């Protein structure tokens, strides 16, 4: 049997319009985005208060990373506004967008370290590009950043010499090089062993609080994310279907959220990708 799309069976969370708040660092207002004819995000509304760690969760391909790219200004929505620190990201000219990005840090899924530079040079990259600090000061700052992620001793390593968890921590040190006000994390826990996963989770929380920053984490790692975040948005097929504090999410009776949080095989998310009837595919040639 062919399965109807998830969004047809899940009732989108009907949020009230979001008032512009001085307490929010990021405001996504009625944003729609798609590639060609395929809608990826549909009328998304969400706010990220200053100083908080907010997770955006959902299945792979539900539009989480696209949302992060919209906030970072890498792509522009077809409709709606994305505001960061009161500035409409999708209407900023390139030079102003670059100025805004100096106040942002982003941790990519696999680190995205510059492979032709050492760990030290990776962390020093932004400092050398955007400041006129003398090398001695840059040296001290880099060592402080690497110390914060516990990798001061690996400063002379090349990225190819690092394990996955270490590379993620170096990338984290690089992303906080200029003490950003907004941190964006794209699947920071993907592919890590349990120890590295816990270390990265604690680092995200600790750095957010010590830097006085605001963090947005895109992830589908429920257990780790719910331990460190203040608020969660759940997405499915381009719409926000639930939101709440970690405790509210754990106690949610929304079937999709319940299935996702507790990793249940049975629920609104079907195992099968929509397809024709099995008999049609198997006996197509004979017919």
């Amino acid at each position, binding site marked *: 049997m062919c399965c109807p799309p998830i969004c047809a069976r899940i009732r989108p969370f009907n949020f009230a319009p979001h008032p512009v708040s001085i307490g929010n660092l990021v405001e996504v207002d009625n944003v729609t985005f798609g590639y060609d004819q395929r809608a990826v995000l549909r009328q998304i509304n969400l706010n990220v208060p200053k100083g908080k760690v907010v997770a955006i969760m959902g299945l792979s391909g539900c539009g989480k990373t696209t949302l992060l790219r919209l906030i*970072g200004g*890498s792509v522009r929505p077809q409709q709606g506004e994305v505001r960061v620190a009161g500035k409409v990201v999708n209407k900023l000219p390139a030079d102003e967008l*670059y*100025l805004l*990005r*100096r106040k*942002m*840090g*982003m941790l*990519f*899924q*696999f680190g*995205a*370290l*510059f*492979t032709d530079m050492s760990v030290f040079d990776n962390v020093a*990259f*932004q400092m050398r*590009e*955007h400041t006129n600090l003398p090398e001695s000061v840059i040296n001290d700052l880099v060592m402080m950043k690497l110390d914060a992620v516990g990798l001061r001793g690996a400063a002379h390593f090349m990225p190819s010499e690092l394990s996955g968890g270490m590379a993620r921590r170096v990338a984290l040190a690089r992303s906080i090089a200029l003490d950003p006000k907004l941190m*964006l994390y794209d699947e920071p826990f993907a592919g890590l062993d349990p120890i590295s996963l816990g270390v990265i989770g604690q680092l995200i929380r600790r750095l957010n609080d010590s830097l006085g920053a605001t963090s947005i984490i895109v992830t589908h790692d429920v257990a780790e994310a719910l331990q460190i975040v203040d608020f969660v948005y759940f997405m499915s097929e381009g719409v926000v279907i639930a939101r709440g504090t970690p405790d509210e999410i754990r106690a949610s009776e929304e079937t999709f959220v319940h299935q996702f949080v507790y990793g249940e095989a049975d629920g609104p998310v079907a195992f099968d990708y929509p397809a024709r009837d099995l008999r049609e595919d198997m006996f197509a040639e004979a017919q």
Partner: protein
Amino acid sequence: MHRVAGLLRRLGAHVTGMIWRLGFATRFFMLILKHSGTSFRRFHLTVREMYFSGVQSLIIIVVSGLFVGMVLGLQGYDTLVRYGSSEALGVLVALSLVRELGPVVAGLLFASRAGSAITAEIGLMKATEQLDAMEMMAVDPIARVVAPRFWAGVISMPLLAALFSAMGVFGGYLVGVRMIGVDEGSFWSQMEAAVDFEEDVLNGVIKSFVFGVAITWIAVFEGYDAPPTAEGVSGATTRTVVTASLWVLALDFILTALMFRGN
């Protein structure tokens, strides 16, 4: 009828696609020029890339130049001796190299060695999100990554072509004078008298400069435009070598037609 219509549709789509791509490549070229300031203000970035695309191409350029010159010496002597003009061997070797073989063969070798490396490096940087990371750090990848590589290639190419020609002349000397026994004085003096700096040497340098622009432009564009997959980067690298080689040969004909009008 349907088959013909389908064929025409595919042909049309292919031609339209090529025109679009040429448009993108031209816009990309304009962006490189616009963001070239960094390459000269922070010249060490360009020098570093000159090491990778220029210095690391030295072995293949020097060895190829030497052997091409040696072959020219043998073939040239074999032809010239039939007309009793074996002393003109130096002229034949030098003019062939400076006018044609130096810029063209060095260009083809540069496209294969350095062009493919530039495409693969930029393509892999894109596939591993390094370019995205740079953009998110408010650093323009065209200014920081592409433009220094472009200018490094443009500066390196004429130097490599000159070195190729010099090694070729030396190879021709080794074979013609040292091995076969052509008079050394005639070899050098006839070469000095016949090779004109402006008509021959300078035009050769202009050719190699134009080839350098074409090859490096194709290499950086293919890398930047490569689909972020293993197959995409491999396809882009192949396209760089094929397209750049064909452009070198086509541009060589055009430049030759413009420069040497039967002199």
